[in-house]
C-alpha cells in the first residue's frame, strides 16, 4: 500500500487533517485503534442552552460531514502502528490490525445484529456518530462468542454476510511520505485520586462520564438510584496542576467544559444548586469573560478544592474544604460530585515507535526534519476547536513536506 500521509488516530484532529490533505489532493491512510472514528469528541454532548455555548463538540460532526463525501483516504480500524522505518523513498509504516470480525466495507448499517445481540450493546456496538465511518462494530471484549464460542447470532442474522467470527489479525506495511500524529490524549484516571472516592461512591463521576450520560440519555441522573440530583458539585483540577502526581501543568479545557456543564444543568433545571470548586479559573476563548460573568449569579464559585469526599448525611456526599475566600474550614453535602479530570499525554509507547521527543509534561513534539507532525491534543491539552485548528496547521506542513519530495 502506498499513501502520501499516514494519520494516526481518527479523532477530530486526525479527520480534520485528512480533510485538509484531501483538499490538497493528497491521499491519507488513517489508523484508528478503536472500532469507530470520532475519538474523545464523540462522547461529548452539545452544551447549548438557548444559544450555542461554544463547547465545540459539533465540530466533530462538521468534520465528518465534510469527509463523508471524499474518498481520497482509507481508514483502518482496530489498527495500531507498531513500527516506522526510514526508506530511501520515505517511511515504511508497520501496522497491526486486530481481528475486525465485522467488515465495515460489507456492512450496510441495517442494525439487525445490534438488535439481536444478546450482550445488548456490549458486543455489537453502534457508532456514536452515524455521519461517517462504520455504523456498527464488534467488540470481542463483551461478546459471548469469545467467552464460550457458542453464540453466533450476529453472524447468522447479518443479511450482508459482513460478520466473520473467525476473523484474523493482520500485519502489513504501508509506504508513506509523512506522518500526522493525531493520537489524542489520555483522560486522567480518577482512581489515582482515591480520596475523591470515584471508585467508592457511584455518585462521584468524572466529567467525561457526565458528558457521556448527557450525550447518550440526554438526562442528568444519579447513577446510584436514577434520581435527579438537587445539589451538584464540580471539583476542578483533578489530575491537573498537581505536582504530587507528576502533572505540573494546567489542562486548559476543564474550566471551560465544567462551566458549560454547570450552565446546562442550571438551564435545564434552575432549582438545582450547583457549586464549583476551583484553584484559579482559566481562560478559554473569546467569550469566556462574558460567559463567566453571566454564570456568576447562578453557580456558586468556591475558591478552594475539597481534600476528600466522604459519605454524608441522607445518602449525600460530604465535601470538606478550606474556603480560601473566607479562611474557614467548611463542609458541604452534595447529591452528585463531578470530577473535572485533566488531560494527559497519549500512550508513551507511540513516542518510541515514532522516534519523537516529549515535552516536559509528556506531550508529543514534532519531528519536522523527518516529516512527522503532531496534531491535536497529543501535543498538549486542547479543546475540540483547537484540536481541529492545530490539525489544519499540521496538515499544511505535512502537505508542504510531501510536495517537496
Amino acid at each position: 500500500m502506498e499513501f502520501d500521509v499516514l494519520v494516526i488516530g481518527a479523532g477530530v484532529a486526525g479527520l480534520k487533517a485528512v480533510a485538509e490533505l484531501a483538499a490538497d489532493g493528497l491521499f491519507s491512510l488513517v489508523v484508528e485503534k478503536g472500532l469507530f472514528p470520532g475519538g474523545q469528541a464523540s462522547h461529548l454532548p452539545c452544551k447549548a442552552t438557548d444559544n450555542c455555548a461554544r463547547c465545540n463538540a459539533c465540530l466533530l460532526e462538521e468534520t465528518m460531514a465534510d469527509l463523508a463525501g471524499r474518498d481520497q483516504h482509507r481508514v483502518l480500524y482496530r489498527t495500531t502502528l507498531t513500527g516506522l522505518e526510514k526508506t530511501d523513498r520515505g517511511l515504511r509504516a508497520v501496522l497491526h490490525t486486530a481481528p475486525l470480525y465485522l467488515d465495515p466495507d460489507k456492512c450496510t448499517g441495517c442494525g439487525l445484529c445490534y438488535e439481536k445481540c444478546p450482550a445488548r450493546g456490549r458486543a455489537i456496538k453502534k457508532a456514536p456518530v452515524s455521519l461517517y465511518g462504520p455504523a456498527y462494530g464488534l467488540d470481542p471484549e463483551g461478546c459471548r462468542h469469545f467467552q464460550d464460542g457458542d453464540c453466533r447470532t450476529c453472524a447468522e442474522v447479518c443479511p450482508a454476510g459482513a460478520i466473520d467470527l473467525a476473523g484474523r489479525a493482520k500485519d502489513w506495511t504501508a509506504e508513506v511520505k509523512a506522518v500526522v500524529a493525531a493520537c489524542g490524549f489520555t483522560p486522567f484516571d480518577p482512581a489515582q485520586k482515591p480520596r475523591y472516592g470515584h471508585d467508592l461512591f457511584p455518585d462521584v463521576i468524572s466529567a467525561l462520564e457526565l458528558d457521556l450520560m448527557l450525550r447518550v440519555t440526554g438526562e442528568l441522573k444519579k447513577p446510584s438510584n436514577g434520581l435527579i440530583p438537587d445539589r451538584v458539585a464540580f471539583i476542578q483540577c483533578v489530575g491537573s496542576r498537581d505536582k504530587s502526581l507528576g502533572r505540573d501543568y494546567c489542562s486548559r479545557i476543564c474550566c471551560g467544559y465544567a462551566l458549560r456543564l454547570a450552565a446546562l444543568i442550571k438551564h435545564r433545571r434552575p432549582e438545582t444548586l450547583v457549586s464549583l470548586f476551583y484553584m484559579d479559573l482559566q481562560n478559554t476563548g473569546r467569550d469566556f469573560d462574558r460567559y463567566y460573568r453571566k454564570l456568576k449569579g447562578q453557580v456558586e464559585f468556591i475558591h478552594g478544592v475539597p481534600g476528600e469526599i466522604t459519605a454524608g448525611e441522607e445518602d449525600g456526599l460530604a465535601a470538606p474544604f478550606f474556603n480560601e475566600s473566607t479562611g474557614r474550614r467548611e463542609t458541604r453535602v452534595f447529591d452528585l460530585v463531578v470530577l473535572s479530570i485533566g488531560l494527559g499525554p497519549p500512550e508513551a509507547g507511540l513516542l518510541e515507535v515514532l522516534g519523537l521527543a516529549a515535552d516536559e509534561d509528556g506531550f508529543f513534539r514534532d519531528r519536522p526534519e523527518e516529516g512527522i507532525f503532531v496534531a491535536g491534543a497529543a501535543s498538549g491539552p486542547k479543546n475540540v476547536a483547537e484540536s481541529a485548528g492545530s490539525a489544519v496547521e499540521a496538515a499544511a506542513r505535512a502537505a508542504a513536506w510531501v510536495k517537496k519530495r
Partner: protein
Amino acid sequence: MTTVRIVLISENHLVAAGLDPKEFLGRVSAWEQVTEARLVRGWTPGEIGPVPDGAVVVLAGRSAPLPWLEDRGCRQFPVDLAVRAAWLAGPAAEKTAVLIRAALAAAEKVPAFSRLTIQTFPRLLVAGVGRAAETTVRAADQAGLEVVWLGPENNGHGPGNVELRPGRRLAGAAGFAGRFQVLLTSDHGFEEIQVGAILVCGHEARTPLTPPGDLKALPLSVFEGELRGNPRPDWADKPDFQVAFIAGAGRSTSTDNMRRVLEAALAVAAGTKARACVFAAQVKVAESGLERLYTQARQAGVVFIRTPESGPVVESSGDGAFRLRVYDPLAGAELVLAPDLVVVEETLSPAIENGDLAAALGLTMGKDGYLSPDNILFLPASTNRRGIFALGPARGTEEPGAVAWEAAQAVAEARRIIGATEIEASPLEVDLGRCTLCLTCVRTCPHQALGFAHRPSADPVACRRCGLCAAECPMDALQLAPFTDPLVKARLEVLLGRPREKTAPPRLVVFGCRRSAAAALAAAPPPQAPVDLCFITLPCAGRIEDDLVWSAFLLGADGVLVAACHEDNCRTHRGSPEARRRLEHLRRLLEETGFPPERLGFTTTAPNLGVGFSRAIVEFNRRIGEMGPGPAAECEK
C-alpha cells in the same frame, strides 16, 4: 433530450425492513419516471454497475451522495431509508415506496448543472502589523504565494515574494473570492489592486488597565522595555524597592498577558535587587509551561496576592505615594502594601477602526467588536465573506499557537480559492420576468455573494448555497437548486399525498437545516410512540419561507416544525435567527386569521443532539395530536 433516471435500492435495507427485494424492485421498475431500477449490495462502482454520465440517480438506502457519481455529472438523490422510514407511519412497503417516489419527484424538477472556467488573481493581500501578520506573511510565502503586505513602515522589504506596501489602508473590496478589486487609501491618495484573497490581521490594540484614583502606573509593555533596556533601571540595585504588578483587575487576564506578567516579575525577583509582587484575581496558567513558570516565580520570591475581581483597592496619600489594600481571608485582616512602582497589564481590545473596516469589506462583526462573529463554525480564521479572513488581533486571538493555526487555515484556503478555476456554476436562478430589481437579495445575502449587473446574480465561488436570498425575495424571483419551491413542493405532495387511516398519528412536516436537524434526525433514537413525520431538508433554516409552510398545511400537515441550528451556531450565522423571526411573524399572521399558531413550531438543535431532537419531535407530536386534525382535514370535511 430525455433524462435517464436510475433508482438504486439497497437490498439489505429491504431485507431488514421485511420486504421481498425482487417484488419491491418490480414495483419500482414499473413507475413511469423510472428508466431503470436496480438492487445493490454496496455502493462501489463494481456493485452498482454502469451508470450513464449525467443521469439522475436515486440512492435509496444511503445518506450521502457518492463522490464518484458526482465526478460523472450525475445528479444524486440519496434517501436514508432507515432513518426516514422510522419516523413515518404505515406499512413498510408503502413507506419505502413513498420515500423513493418523493426523491424522484424532486429529481424531476432539478435543473442540469454546469461547470465554468474563471480567472483568479494570483496575489494575496495581508493587512496588519505584529506577530499575527508576520506569521501569516511567512506562511503565505512558504506556500509559494505572491503576497502584498500592507505592513510595517520600517521593514524595508519582506521575504521572498512579498511586496511591502506600508502606509495604506483597506478602503473597500469589490468583486468576489478569487477576484477582488481592492481599494487602498494612503496619505498620497488612492490606488486599486487585484488580489485573490484578503487576510486581515490588524494590529494589537492594547489598552493599559486604568487603575482607580490618581495611581501612577506603568503599562506592562513600557516596563518590559525598561527591563530589557540598557542601562539598567536605577531601581534595580535598590534592595527595598518594590514593584507591584496588577493583572486582570475588572477583566480576565489572558494567558498570554499572564505569561508576560510572570516573566517580568520573575526578572525583577531573580535579576535585580528589587522585590516583586503580583496582584491577581485568578492566576491564569492555561498554556503550556505556565504552571511551571508560576512555581518558578514563587520560588524566586515573587509574592502572589489574591484580589477580588475588581482588583486591589488603591489609596493615594496625595504626595505621589499610594497604597494597595486587599482583604486577606487567611490572616483575617487587610493586607496593605506601598509599592514604589506599579505595573499594569494591557488587555487586547478591538481596534477602533474595526467598525470602518467591517463596513468597507462587508464583514459581519462579532458583538465584541472583532471582525468575525463569535461563532465556532467560523474558526479558525473565516469571516462571513469567502476569500476574506480575519486572524490574530483582528478576531481577538492572542495565543501564538492559535495564531499559527489561523494563518495556516487562511493561507491554505486562499491558495485553494486562487487555484480553483474550474468551478460549479451558481445554483441560483433568477426569473427576470418576476425580478423588480428591488435588490433585497443583494442586501440579504450574509456572504456578500450577490452582485448586480442588469439583474442580480450569485457568484459561484462566494455563494454558500444557504438560500436566504431566495427565501427573502418578495417576488419569488430567485430559486436555489436543489431547494427550489417547486422541488420542495413536489416532495411534499408525494409525502403528504399518501392515503391516511383514521387512527393514524398526526401528520407532521419538519423543515430542517441540512447541517443540524438532518444530522440530528439520523442520530436520533427512533420514536417509541407512533409518529408520522415527513422530513424536508433545507440548506439552512433561513431558507424557510411562508409559502413552504402554507403548502405543507394545505397539502395535509397537521403540524409544521422548523428545526434550525442554535443561535451563533449557524453556518450562515444569520440563517437561524432569520428563520425564527420569519416564523414569529407567520405565527402572528396565523393568529390574526384565527388559525391556531401552535400548529407551527420552531426548535433549535445540533448535529450531535439526536436524543434531544427526538424528544422535541415526540413532544411536538403529542401537542399536535391533542389539537386534532389540521386545516386541510377540516376543509375536506
